């Protein structure tokens, strides 16, 4: 319940406090001699060409998209993993296994489709 999570929140607060002080200390102590040449983004010596944020290939979108679908699948399997021993004690292990097998096969077909149809080529 909520009471179990408070130690985690306390640890988070302390970690934020610590990293904030580290950064602030460095910002205060460090020298401040900014000039335009120094502030241009690093392009191994040459001056930068074009805006940094023009478009990159669609591969990254496809990876992230396939990642969500499988993340949701893994999330659906956690309740099964926790209650699997209870299903076995009740003697219906085969039933729940068939439900889970069908669910995993449906999404394995999704993975197969992605691999075959170029969703995951990284040439």
């Amino acid at each position, binding site marked *: *319940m*909520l*009471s*179990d*999570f*408070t130690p985690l*929140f306390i640890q988070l607060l302390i970690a934020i406090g610590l990293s904030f002080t580290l950064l602030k200390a460095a910002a205060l102590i460090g020298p401040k001699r900014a000039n335009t040449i120094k502030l241009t983004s690093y392009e191994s010596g040459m001056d930068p060409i074009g*805006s940094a*944020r*023009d*478009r*990159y290939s*669609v591969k*990254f*979108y*496809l990876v*992230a*998209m*396939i*990642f*969500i*679908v499988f*993340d*949701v*699948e893994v*999330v*659906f399997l*956690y*309740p*099964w993993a*926790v*209650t699997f021993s*209870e*299903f076995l004690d009740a003697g219906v292990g085969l039933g*729940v296994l068939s*439900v*889970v097998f*069908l*669910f995993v096969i*449906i*999404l394995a*077909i*999704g993975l197969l*489709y*992605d691999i075959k*149809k*170029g*969703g995951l080529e990284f040439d």
Partner: protein
Amino acid sequence: MLMTAPIMFFVFAIVALAAALGMLLSKNPVSSALWLILNLFCVAGLYLTLNAEFIAVIQVLVYAGAIMVLFVFVIMLLNLAELPDLKKVEWRRIIAFTMGMGLLSMLTFISANALDMLPNPPSLAAAAENGSVTNLGKALFTVYAMPLEIIGILLLAATIGAVVIAKRKPV
């Protein structure tokens, strides 16, 4: 204990509303995505005050950890700082505003005073047990087994559709 439920509720609720407002008003898509991620964290915190801890962790894992990653990727991919807007006609905004206000008043009126029908709030133990993983797991794989398979098919269709649409050459 210092962090009693009402204080946590107010902290999460106010930060959630502020984050939602931040998302609506920010100019740059990436900053609005960050505001939405903050909002999702606060909603996960709200689930904790409702003692549904499994749903809270799943919310962080799926929503904030996967869906918003895709949003941030696409924003960066398409360099959407100057994304062309879908043109909307001016008079539509007036109708939209009145509709929104009407909806707001209706919903807040309903939820604010009509709720004496549900008895007392759940006891701490009962709520935790109801929201526990074992309880969810048993119900999900027996009673709701069929919708689970249909959701599997839905996710498969979404993958295939997204791959085909995204990979087609621009026409």
